[in-house]
């Protein structure tokens, strides 16, 4: 093959073979990020909640190293207030992958006195997770932790880098972030510091669902419509469980619901839905007019900057 000094720009626009769908482009970007981190940072860990985003993340990590095994363990920050279906799902996925699972327990942090449990009907272990997470990162000496957060989820997240630096105290400094250029990531950290890595940064909720449908990714059953005992609070439907105290005027009732996000049973709301298949769910998501966190997450309703504040403390 000979090369002319300045070959003309190829015009293959009629030829679909070089076109790439936005999902493939996002997938490829995520795989690139995952491989960079595994190659450059000594000890990495993938944070896995059992939610749809971490399911996609795990799927992408598997793709990145195929046919090899995952070169890092999977960690669940366990609040103890889980949907049992999600824990079953977590264990099934980890076993299927042959990955090593680390469980960092918020209950242990409470028992050891590192954090103090909130009380009352509106209490949640959501915020306590940051301490458990940071302690686990320190204990295992992780230099990088992959998370499934997306920039479209929340306004503070929209400002975050794909590879996001955390100081010795696990803090995020939104004003002092490392610039991120081209596809070049700077993963240099000193002892005690680490990076959070968000390969799904550029994905939207709809991208995630379309990808799950296209790739047929297994999910916990609570993402699909099922009948469940719920109660209404602040306009949201919550699952009745041992982790939530009902207020005097709150009455449980049965409803067909599905969950749009997966967090603690105490702070994750359900949506009324009849969508029992992936196709139905994607159609509902495509038509929805309310954001997933706005519709289903009590933890973001505390204040305008609830997420920003939690992130600065070291939250996911």
């Amino acid at each position: 093959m000979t090369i002319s000094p300045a070959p003309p720009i190829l015009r293959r626009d009629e030829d679909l073979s070089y076109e790439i769908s936005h999902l493939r482009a996002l997938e490829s970007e995520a795989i690139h990020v995952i491989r960079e981190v595994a190659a450059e940072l000594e000890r990495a860990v993938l944070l896995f909640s059992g939610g749809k985003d971490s399911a996609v993340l795990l799927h992408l990590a598997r793709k990145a190293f195929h046919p090899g095994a995952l070169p890092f363990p999977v960690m669940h920050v366990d609040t103890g207030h889980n949907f049992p279906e999600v824990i079953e799902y977590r264990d099934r996925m980890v076993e299927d992958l042959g990955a090593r699972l680390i469980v960092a327990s918020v209950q242990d942090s409470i028992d050891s006195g590192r954090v103090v449990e909130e009380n009352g009907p509106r209490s949640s272990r959501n915020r306590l997770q940051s301490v458990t997470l940071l302690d686990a990162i320190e204990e295992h000496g992780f230099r990088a932790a992959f998370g499934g957060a997306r920039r479209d989820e929340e306004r503070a997240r929209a400002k975050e880098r794909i590879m996001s630096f955390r100081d010795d105290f696990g803090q995020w400094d939104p004003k002092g972030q490392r610039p991120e250029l081209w596809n070049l990531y700077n993963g240099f950290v000193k002892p005690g510091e680490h990076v959070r890595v968000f390969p799904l940064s550029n994905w939207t909720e709809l991208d995630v669902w379309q990808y799950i449908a296209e790739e047929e990714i297994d999910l916990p059953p609570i993402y699909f419509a099922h009948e469940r005992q719920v109660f209404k609070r602040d306009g949201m439907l919550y699952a009745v469980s041992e982790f939530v105290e009902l207020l005097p005027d709150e009455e449980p009732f049965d409803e067909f619901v599905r969950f749009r996000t997966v967090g603690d049973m105490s702070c994750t709301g359900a949506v009324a839905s009849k969508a029992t298949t992936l196709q139905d769910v994607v159609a509902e998501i495509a038509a929805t007019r309310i954001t997933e966190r706005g519709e289903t997450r009590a933890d973001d309703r505390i204040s305008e900057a609830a997420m920003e504040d939690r992130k600065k403390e070291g939250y996911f």
Partner: protein
Amino acid sequence: MATGAATNGRPRPVRTSELVRFATAGSVDDGKSTLIGRLLFDTKSIFEDQLEHVEETSKRRGDGYVNLALLTDGLRAEREQGITIDVAYRYFHTPRRKFIIADTPGHEQYTRNMVTGASTADLALILVDARKGVLEQSRRHAFIASLLRIPHLVVCVNKMDLVDFDEEVFERIRSEFTGWAAKLDIHDMTFIPISALHGDNVVERSERMAWYDGPSLLYHLEHVHVASDRNLQDARFPVQWVTRPMSDELHDYRGYAGEVASGVLRKGDEIVVLPSGRTTRIAGIDTYDGELDEAYPPLSVTLRLEDDIDVSRGDMICRPQNRPVEAKDIDAMVCWMSERPLSPTGRYRIKHTSRTALAKVDQVIYRIDVNSLHREEQAEALQLNEIGKLRLRLSSPLFVDEYRRNRMTGSFILIDESTNDTVGAGMVL
């Protein structure tokens, strides 16, 4: 409606949707955030709870109207000060395309953010206030767009409602901008008169500017041709990761994982591995979903080679007759991104593709005055937000192409050895 709009209860086939990244830049108060808010609002990418939130905040601030700019300012300090601090990424779909907006602040001190947003952009969108004309900042943004070689530039002349939708104002700005931009290397430049606040020519063609016969901004964004902006001629595959499962059934498997930086790689192609110079052929292109016949940018794949040669992370796979330059000295344009100025005797880490080396500053050849484009040859250092031409000496060779020819193998970052901060963004000349 965003893409994925249900047709017969099924999502649209996703294959038709193409990913387009664009960077927006503008000066303070020229309506950039409003324009983005408008694009999101009119493509129904804003959700009800987000809108309610903006309405409440607008009311509380006493804005007197629904301030769409509040949609994009995510940090508390930004809302308090009414400014944008950092690059924010926003997303919207149309049936044809998925868009990623890198929204970069316009203040002078944040040039580095514009460079950051521009580095991955297919298109740059620059706002000019119709009343103020082409400001220094607009020129600076156009210069950065051309320096970063964003293939398409769109200049939105905004606030046309405040100049009575006057064609003459638009034409005057267009000709001033075009005259100045002749000094720059910009191939595709489009001018659109808009009112972001009222939506004129943003999504729909405006009836109030009948003299304008071009497309609306959204139509342009949806149709501008970006697929051929990729370099499909020069095969470049930086190796990221060596896959060696060493399991019973895959005992001898060795794959080289990476993202195709440019060009097309096919099974059976003769290739050379740099720096070793060993040649062999591609035995297979593997992905989790099966083998591919060919790989092209930006696909992440794993290559198997016919011969068992030594390949490791940081190596570059290319074609024997079309190789990048093996460089131990490089001349590059560098944008300085740190409060700590570039030290003329400094030593930095340089990261280029999947390879990291050390770089010493050999010479500051000149600094560019980004307003006049004048070259200041007496410059000895670069301060934050300054751009200049440097000669660097490297501790070990990098395999580079000119940035103008290849954005992926012509770009690098400089990392401060003591702070680990990313301090420079470089483009190989």
